[in-house]
Structures are given as structure tokens and as C-alpha cells.
């Protein structure tokens, strides 16, 4: 029991600490480290609730994919000899208000809709697959199409400058 509480506390600490670093630091690379800690904390949280598959997918997709892309973008855009990249912000109070507003909105909308919708113990990979490829197949595939459209659009926007 105490071990479970310890694991939960560790995951929560990772999430909160990571989020605090992301919100407060100005150094872009420290920010990425904070984001990584936060994402790992979320994976730990999934694990705590028994969703091993989700936790692994979280590490695979978000830490190994999305976070790497963020660092990659920073490194490519910013030259290595130009000092450390900093996040500059001139609207701290406004940004904080927007952040709190959006998170409040999310919490409220999730609280209403989560109750009956979430699959009953989707702890194993196969139950998630049945859920996604069964009842929600159309939504799932549409999401894929949306991502593809976004990718093609990015290629179109970036394209002409890169032509050799």
C-alpha cells in the first residue's frame, strides 16, 4: 500500500514539477526537460491506474516522438553558436489568464462527458483496439485523415523555400 502511494507521489511530483518548470523557466532546453518530466509523469499516472499499454504508448509517442520533434525544431532553427535560446514573454498576466481559462474549460467539459463514455476497464491493448477499431472506427480514421491533411499542408507551406 505504502509503495503504491510512493509511486503515485513520484508520478504526481514529476507532473507538477515538470509543469512548473515549463511555466516558469526561460531557457528553452530546460523547458524541454520539464516537458519530458511531465510526460513521463503522465505515463506513471497511467501505470498507477493499471493502463500499462497506454503508459507505454505515452512514452513511445510523446517522449520518443513529439518531444524529440520539439527539440529538433529548436536545434534546427537556432544556430549552435548563438547563445542559449530563451523564451521571451511580454504578456505574463494575460498568458496566465488564458492558461487558467483553458484548463478550467477542459476540466469542466471532461467532468461532464467522461462519466458514461470511457470504456469500462480498458486496461489491456486488445480492449482499446476493440474500442477504437469497433465502435469509434470512423472517428479514428477521420483523425488519421486530419493528420495527413495537416502534414500535406505543412509540406505545401514549407515547400517552395526548400526547392533546389
Amino acid at each position: 500500500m505504502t509503495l503504491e502511494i510512493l509511486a503515485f507521489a513520484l508520478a504526481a511530483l514529476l507532473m507538477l514539477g515538470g509543469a512548473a518548470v515549463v511555466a516558469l523557466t526561460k531557457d528553452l532546453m530546460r523547458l524541454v526537460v520539464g516537458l519530458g518530466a511531465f510526460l513521463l509523469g503522465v505515463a506513471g499516472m497511467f501505470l498507477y491506474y493499471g493502463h500499462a499499454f497506454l503508459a507505454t504508448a505515452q512514452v513511445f509517442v510523446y517522449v520518443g516522438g513529439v518531444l524529440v520533434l520539439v527539440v529538433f525544431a529548436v536545434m534546427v532553427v537556432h544556430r549552435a553558436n548563438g547563445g542559449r535560446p530563451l523564451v521571451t514573454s511580454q504578456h505574463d498576466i494575460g498568458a496566465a489568464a488564458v492558461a487558467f481559462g483553458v484548463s478550467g474549460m477542459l476540466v469542466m467539459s471532461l467532468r461532464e462527458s467522461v462519466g458514461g463514455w470511457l470504456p469500462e476497464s480498458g486496461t489491456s491493448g486488445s480492449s482499446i483496439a476493440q474500442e477504437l477499431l469497433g465502435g469509434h472506427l470512423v472517428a479514428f480514421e477521420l483523425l488519421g485523415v486530419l493528420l495527413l491533411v495537416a502534414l500535406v499542408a505543412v509540406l505545401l507551406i514549407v515547400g517552395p523555400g526548400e526547392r533546389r
Partner: protein
Amino acid sequence: MTLLWGFLWGVAAVATIAGGAILGVWWERKVSARIQMRYGPQQIGPFGSLQMIADVPKLLFKEDIVPALADKAIFKYAPLFVFGPVAVSMVVIPFTAGWAPLNTSVGVLFFLAVPSIEVIAILLSAWASHNTLSTLGGLRATAQMISYEVPRSLAVLAIVLLAGSLRPLDVVAAWRWWWMPLTFVAFVIYFVASIAEMNRGPFDIPEAESELVAGYFADYSGMRWASFMMAEYGAMIAASLFGAALFFGGGWPFGGALGVITLIVKAILIMTAIMWVKWTFPRLRQDQLMSFCWKALTPLALVQLVVVGVVLVWL
């Protein structure tokens, strides 16, 4: 109690990798020497086997240099996260029929996912060095590691499809000898992609010593450098053990302790093949590397997947 066991397994994994790296370096020196018609280490101990015992204190006592302009905190601790995930990924390897240190229902995915934390650590260490060559090496390493994850996962997926489970123990239990010819292409893809994932020759473009000095770890010295080295050998050991377990049936045809020995022998054979490849082929070019991954390996892996699917329906 569980915590204590977890701690002990952690120590065991690190010790296995450290010991394996020491033996691996010696074995690699011998293998490369044979390939180049030399003797390799032979002065210290029988067949030069004690050479590494002289090398380890050297690494431990070397000066730990941190560049003046480096981002100190990230520079110092990133190597830990290069080595850590490799050690963690070892725990799901099914050493013999019915026994793996960590028996989890998503073990195969775990083995593929956890080392992706290593990518971010490599990028951060490359960035923290504040050095153009390191940054270039880090970018190359990342592009390569992310790309080759695709064919590697697809190749493993062929086996997962046959076994019908992501639990490594189930895969080993369901394994049949005729999977070997059926998934041979998948194994070759896994083998090549694994070499690319661990940034070893002929895929060592990120650390190409003739152009980038040592790439993303050019500024590291002493034990911090050694942790990059251990991560490379650790990845080699882990990939060989996992490949032997999934594609060659673990301890098949034996069970129990004999099965563990069989698995290790198979893994050593795969490791020797990895070394053989490194010392035989010249380094690839960046564009060759990328087109090989996306235009050759990935479609091939998809074809293999379709073949396995057809066989499954036909069975």
C-alpha cells in the same frame, strides 16, 4: 519487498551491461583483429582478456572536463539518461520459457518504447555541449534513430502477429521452428535497424570520427564518456538477447537453466554478426541512410507483415 526486488533487478541490469560491455569490448577487439588479419590484445592475461581491467580504472580516474560554455546541469546528467533506458529495457527479456525479470502484458512494446527516451537524452547532451560538431551529430543521431524505429517495430510486429500477444513470455511459448524461415526477412530488418538504432558502423554517421570528431559526445570525457560507450554496448546486448528470444525462440530447444545458456549463446552469435558487419562495411552517407530506411527497409517490412498475415489466414 517489491521495491527491494526492483532495486536488486536494477543493480543486476547495470552490472550485466557493465560486465557485458567489458567482455564485449574485448570480444570486439578480437573479432576486428581477426577480420583485419591481426592478433588483437594478447599481452595482458590469457588472450589479452585482462586488458579491460586496466582500461576501466583509466576511465574512472580520467579528468571530468565540462566545457566552459556548456549548459552545466544538462551536460552533466544527460549521459545518465542515455544509459538508463537501455538498462531498463533489459528487464522484459524472456530469458527462458516461463521466466522474465518483469512479466508484463506489453513487454514487446515496452522494449521498443523505453529506449526512445535515450533519443531525447542524446539530443540534450549534444545541445548542452554548445559545440557545432556535437549539435550536428545529435541531429543526425536523432533523425536516424527515429526513422529506423519504424522498420524495427514493423519487423517485430510480424512475430507479434504470429504469436498473438505482446507478452514476451507468450511469444516464446507460442514460438514454432517454422517461424524462422517465415520471418527471416523480418529478422534481417530487425538486425539492420537495430544496428542503426545503436549508432554503430556502418551507420555511425552521427559520430563519424573523420568529420565530426565523435559527434554528440565529442566533448565528454572520463566516466561520462564511458556511459555513452556502455549505452552502445548495452543496446547491442539488449537487441541481441531480444532478437534471439523473439526470432529464434529464446531457449529453444531447451528449457530451464540450459535454455538461458542457449539464449545467451544465440545472442553472442548475433552480437558477433553485428561486429562483423561493422568491421566489413564502409560508412554510409546521410542521404543513402535515409533512403535505405524509407525506400527499402520500411516497404520490405510491410511486405513481410502481409506475408505473415496471409499465412495466418491460410493456417
